[in-house]
Each structure stands twice: as C-alpha cells, then as structure tokens.
C-alpha cells in the first residue's frame, strides 16, 4: 500500500490518495476482522475525470482518489463488509489477488478515516452518508 503522498493540506491544493502499490502494514499484522466502512456525511464529493474529488469539511482540504480508491469510497455504504467490497470492485475489475487487495484496501480505509472522509466500524454503520 502506498500511503498518501501528501500530508493534509490547508492551502486548498489537492492531496492525492491512492489504493494499490507496494508497502507494509504499519501494525505488521494480518487483516482485520469484518469491518464496515461508510462515507462521511461531512464531506463534499464529486467524480471528475475518473477520480473522486473530496473536500473535507474539517479543514477544506481537497483530496483526489484514484480509480481504485474511488471505487472503494463509492461502495462504502456502511452495510457491505470491506472484504466483500474488495472482492466485488477490486478483485473482479483489476486482476489482483484477494489477500493483497484486502490488505491494500484496509490501509487505504484507515488512511481515509484518519483524514475524516470515511468512517470505519466493526459493526454495520447505521446512518451512512448518501
């Protein structure tokens, strides 16, 4: 997993965030148990030229997600387990091994959650964003 290339910015420029690439989990452990992800209701978002543009209400930082990260973000409905999202949107569309894809996806969603644009829970999330 390639971490976000840029720290959160307050200057209105775009921080690019990607799913995929190479790297190690920070905790070095195996994948999490069933986790659920939901888009934050606090952000503004729109697909532009194949990339999801997301503005954080927290500090107006603008994020750009690449195609695979966009696909995960769009599928984050709070009800579908991440493993199922990965299987459906990554493994099916990008010819990537399930375990590797899940590991990358877990790191991505943690990063997005840290930036306040996604919510993570061990349980289904009751009131996901639209």
């Amino acid at each position: 997993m390639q971490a976000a290339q840029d720290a959160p910015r307050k200057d209105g420029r775009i921080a690019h965030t990607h799913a995929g690439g190479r790297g190690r989990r920070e905790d070095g452990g195996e994948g999490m148990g069933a986790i659920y992800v939901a888009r934050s209701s606090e952000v503004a978002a729109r697909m532009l030229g194949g990339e999801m543009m997301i503005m954080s209400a927290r500090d107006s930082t603008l994020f750009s997600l690449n195609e695979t990260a966009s696909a995960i973000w769009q599928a984050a409905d709070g009800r579908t387990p991440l493993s199922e999202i990965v299987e459906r949107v990554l493994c099916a569309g990008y010819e990537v091994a399930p375990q590797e894809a899940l590991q990358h996806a877990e790191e991505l969603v943690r990063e997005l959650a840290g930036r306040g644009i996604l919510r993570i829970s061990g349980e289904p999330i009751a009131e996901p964003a639209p």
Partner: protein
Amino acid sequence: MDELSSRALALGVPLSVHLDLTYRCNERCVHCYLDHEDHGEMNTAEIKGLMDQLMDAGVFFLVFSGGEIFMRRDLYELIEYARSHMFCLKLKTNAFMIGEKEADLLAGMHLDGVQVSIYSHRPEVHDAITMLPHSLERSVAGIRRLRERGIRVIIANVLMMQNLADYAGVKALAVELGAEYTIDPTITPMISGDRSPMELGIGREELQSVFRNPELVGNVGEFCAPPPAYIGDDVLDEVPCSAGHTACYVSPYGDVYPCVQFPLPTGNVRKEKFLDIWRGSAAMNEVRSIRARDLPVCSTCSHVGTCTRCPGLAFMEGNMRGPSSADCEKSFARTGVTTAGQKLRQSGGRLVQIAGIG
C-alpha cells in the same frame, strides 16, 4: 484548487454554480442590482430537479444566494437535499433571520461556509444602506450564533462612498466574531441595465487608497506592481475568467447565465435540460470561445495579463469583448498605468481599430 479548475476546464465540466433561490429580500440595499418582486420563482420540486441535473453534470461547488435565502420556507429542505447530493455548499445571506433554531439546523449541514454582507460596524451607516432598522444588530447576532456552532463565516464588505470610512471597523468586527473578511469595491449595474447604482461606488483616489493598504491587500509592492512589459502568447491564449467555462449562474426563474454578473441569456432549465444549455447554447459557446487575444482593445493593453477584467461588466457596457471600465479603473488605481480602455474612452472611441495601444 487551480489543479481542480484546470481539470474541470479541460473536461468542460461546470465545476461551480451560483443559484439564486429568490430575489425577494427583507432588506432594500441602496446599491442592490435586483428587482425584489417575485415573478414566478422555481418551486421546491423544480429546484430539487435542477440539483439532480447539476450533480449529474459534475457540479461540485454550489452557492445558494438571493435575494435573501431565508425568505424561502423550503430553505432547509433545499440545503438538506444539496448536502445529500454531496455538493460543497456555501450560503450567502444577511443573517438577519438566523436565530438559535436556524443556527442549530445549519450546524448539522456541514456547509463550506456562510457569507454575510456587512457594510459598517456602525448601525447608523449599515442600516442606512440596508434600509432596514436594526439590521446590523440582527446580522451580527446571526453571525455569532453561527460561529458559536463552529460554522465558517465570511463577512463581505462592499465598499461605497457611504461606508468608505468604516472598512477597518468591519475588519475588526470580523476578527472579534472569528469570521473571515473580504472587501469588494465593485458596484454593479442593476440586472435591468440601469447604471444608477454605480454612482454610489468609490472614486479613483479612494480606490488607490484601498489598494495601498497592506492590511487589505498584503504586499502592496507586489499588488500594485506595474504590468509586465512583455505579453506572451500564453497570456493571450488564456480564458478571461471562469464564467461559462467552469462556472455559471441560475436565476430563481430558471434562467441560466454565464455568471451572476453576466446577464447574457443562454437558456432556461424549465424548458431545457441544464446540460443541453451548458453544452449546446450558442450564447454560452460564444462566451466560451473568447480568449484574451480576441479582445480588440484589451489584447493590446499592457494590463491584459494582470487585469481583473470582468466580461459580464463589459457586456453590460455593451460589448462582451470590450473593456470593463470598472476594471480599467482598478488596474489604473493599482499601478498608475493608464489602460487601453481608458485611452480609448479619452479619445472618444476612435482608437478601437488601432493595434499596439499600450
């Protein structure tokens, strides 16, 4: 943000839309360019339908303005709908009607911000401009309620002769309230074309004084630097502004214009799909086709790369490819260098076909 705009420009996406929900207003500002009668504004369903279309068109930044938006009973329904469509939503209001309940409702909407017009920190000056007694007191109270709930507020200070002495006071008020501050010395003609509000605007000397105030413009030397001697092709190939390129305006009656300050009719969303107007309107495409090199006067002006020329104001002066006299004044006030538009006016218009004015 430049990267986002460039991407939208390349893709032909209307990144920003300014939507006036109503022209009705509780204030009667002396410089206002609107007719406040309701001539049949869009209803709730029509505006929601429009927002569906705007989302599909790729609109990211949406501004709800007016008139006074709190005059609409369905305002919260519309805000909620806009946020459910994940627009980056900004409101423009006078905040007069924002009580505790209204502020509570707005706090849960995750707005990009709320812009409030404040003309003076002195009630006798502010209220004389809005023509509404106690309007400063009520607007400031509304701002306080928003700030108490962590909502970003931008105080917009339109400058006129009537309130010229008060911008430092308004800026101090903004600091006290924890609000951002922006100043605008441009008074625009009425939407009907009536230019009488322009007489309220500040004069050249006052504008020069504003532009040399470091508290307002930052680095004065940089802000007031003379225009560059050389104008490259890259400057002449630039689009004049975002109007019609990545931004447009929709009136309460569904009329689509390139910008709120550019009353060139391009279509009506009650008769056509928004995207059909955006992509197919001959008027919109004409605006879109214009580059700096296509401006017969301004392309010969040394200010062409640094001027804030507003094509809408030029249009209201009679020619969307002509100079905007208000922006010529601003360029001159900043730099002391006469613009091609000013030379043209001084000559009575006879220089229009002469190349190399500068």
